[in-house]
């Protein structure tokens, strides 16, 4: 089990110590052109989670390749590059420009991308055609038949899956009843997501047997073990890093000497698989 950060939940250049406490650093999603992201406020706390509408703020492919990537390489941490875009060619061009990194994670679940199974598979196929690097397809759980999407991206050449991205959510200001986020809706992450993440990993592992990076509401060692039992080979920490930058180290202590190889997939043994 490799412990990673969730894309968009850590900047290795401002917090190199946290990045080094992980088994790999996943970048924020890189799009072809620079993006400032959405207007603030773009974060809000909910009762048991948080919302973000960052809007894929990133320096764009050229500046990432020229400036950030060389600095990231110096950290000595295996690099996962999160790739985003709006059409398949956006993704493929970025994938083609990358080499000598641990893996590429295709963010197929950003709010502005059509998430229907076809289109996700199309993007994966376009990227597969231009790179031999491990390709992870990152999916949202917001689909009536997630196993279908998982099978489609597997057939298109994905080497693995990253599950789950945020769910659409909203929070209102108690006095004005206006949305807290300037954009209105945002992505729900944190503890509320955990049962959804377990189900998504469980479904997609049963459907594809691909290696999965599990994430969604992980806050403690126990959550890592649950994801592994559902079929995650690796696990990523997202929202928890905001409140606890020491979480990678703490979570490892909490896992202790639990034998994760033995736990792997146990949630599939007894229950009727629901896929």
């Amino acid at each position, binding site marked *: 089990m490799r412990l990673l950060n969730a894309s*968009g*939940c*850590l*900047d290795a250049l*401002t*917090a190199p110590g*946290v990045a080094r406490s992980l088994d790999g650093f996943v970048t*924020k999603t890189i799009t072809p052109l620079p993006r*400032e*992201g959405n207007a*603030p*406020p*773009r*974060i*809000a*706390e*909910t009762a*048991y*989670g*948080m919302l*973000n509408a*960052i809007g894929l*703020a990133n320096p764009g492919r050229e500046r990432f390749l020229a400036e950030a990537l060389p600095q990231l390489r110096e950290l000595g941490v295996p690099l996962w590059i999160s790739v985003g875009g709006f059409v398949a060619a956006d993704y493929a061009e970025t994938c083609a420009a990358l080499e000598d990194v641990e893996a590429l994670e295709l963010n197929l679940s950003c709010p502005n991308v059509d998430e229907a199974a076809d289109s996700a598979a199309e993007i994966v196929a376009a990227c597969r055609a231009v790179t031999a690097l491990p390709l992870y397809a990152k999916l949202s759980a917001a689909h009536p038949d997630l196993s279908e999407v998982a099978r489609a991206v597997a057939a298109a050449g994905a080497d693995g899956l990253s599950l789950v991205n945020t769910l659409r959510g909203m929070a209102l200001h108690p006095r004005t009843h206006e949305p807290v986020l300037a954009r209105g809706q945002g992505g729900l992450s*944190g*503890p509320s997501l955990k049962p959804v993440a377990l189900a998504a990993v469980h479904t997609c592992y049963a459907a594809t047997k691909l290696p999965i990076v599990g994430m969604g509401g992980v806050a403690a060692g126990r959550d890592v073990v649950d994801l592994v039992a559902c079929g995650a080979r690796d696990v990523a920490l997202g*929202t928890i*890093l*905001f*409140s*606890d*930058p*020491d979480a990678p180290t703490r979570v490892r202590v909490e896992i202790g000497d639990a034998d994760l190889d033995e736990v792997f997939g146990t949630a599939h043994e007894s229950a009727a698989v629901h896929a």
Partner: protein
Amino acid sequence: MPRRERRSVTGVERVGAYTLLRLDRGGLEPGVPGQFFMLEAPGRLLPRALSLCQASPGELAFLLDAVGPGTEALCALEPGERIHVFGPLGNGFRLDVERPLLVGGGIGMAPLPYLATRLGRAPAVLGFRSERHAEAAALLPDAEVVVEPRLVTELIDPGYEVLACGPEPMLHAVAAMCPGAQLAWEAPMACGYGACYGCAVDVDGELKRLCVEGPVLEAA
């Protein structure tokens, strides 16, 4: 280097309409005035950003305005309870100023007591929205104080180099009056250390992370 430690509450005092929360300092550095700490707010998912208000060898103190669930939870702490504290974070005030004037509006006075200590007694002007809020001026004994409808900006002599913290409209007014002023801004923050990109603010026409570039920024 910022550290994250679990610290004990050593005192919780009402100061006018605000609350002064004292924590035992442990291995935490106080940092530069204007830097901030992320404090665990019991029962909430995300920590809350607070400027350091006072520092002593044994304690760090924060001045709080209870405006929502997080600050309310922090103000309800009792001596002996423990919370995680992470900091110091961000960029504080430059202290190499010749004729400093400290300007605070409301809870924006929070970083000024520590700033005054580090500068060695600079003149200060404070504005508050009520007499009760103004009682917090006791934490900065030599300050000149006004209460609404008078505004603190009336007291600013542009001959000084201003170091200010307060509500946005006040900071904009100060920026207009005093180019080069050092202003401590606020933004909703999830992490405080550059990880979430939640604290984006417009800096010279570009959205930047306030926790990394600020919270103290120079007025253009």
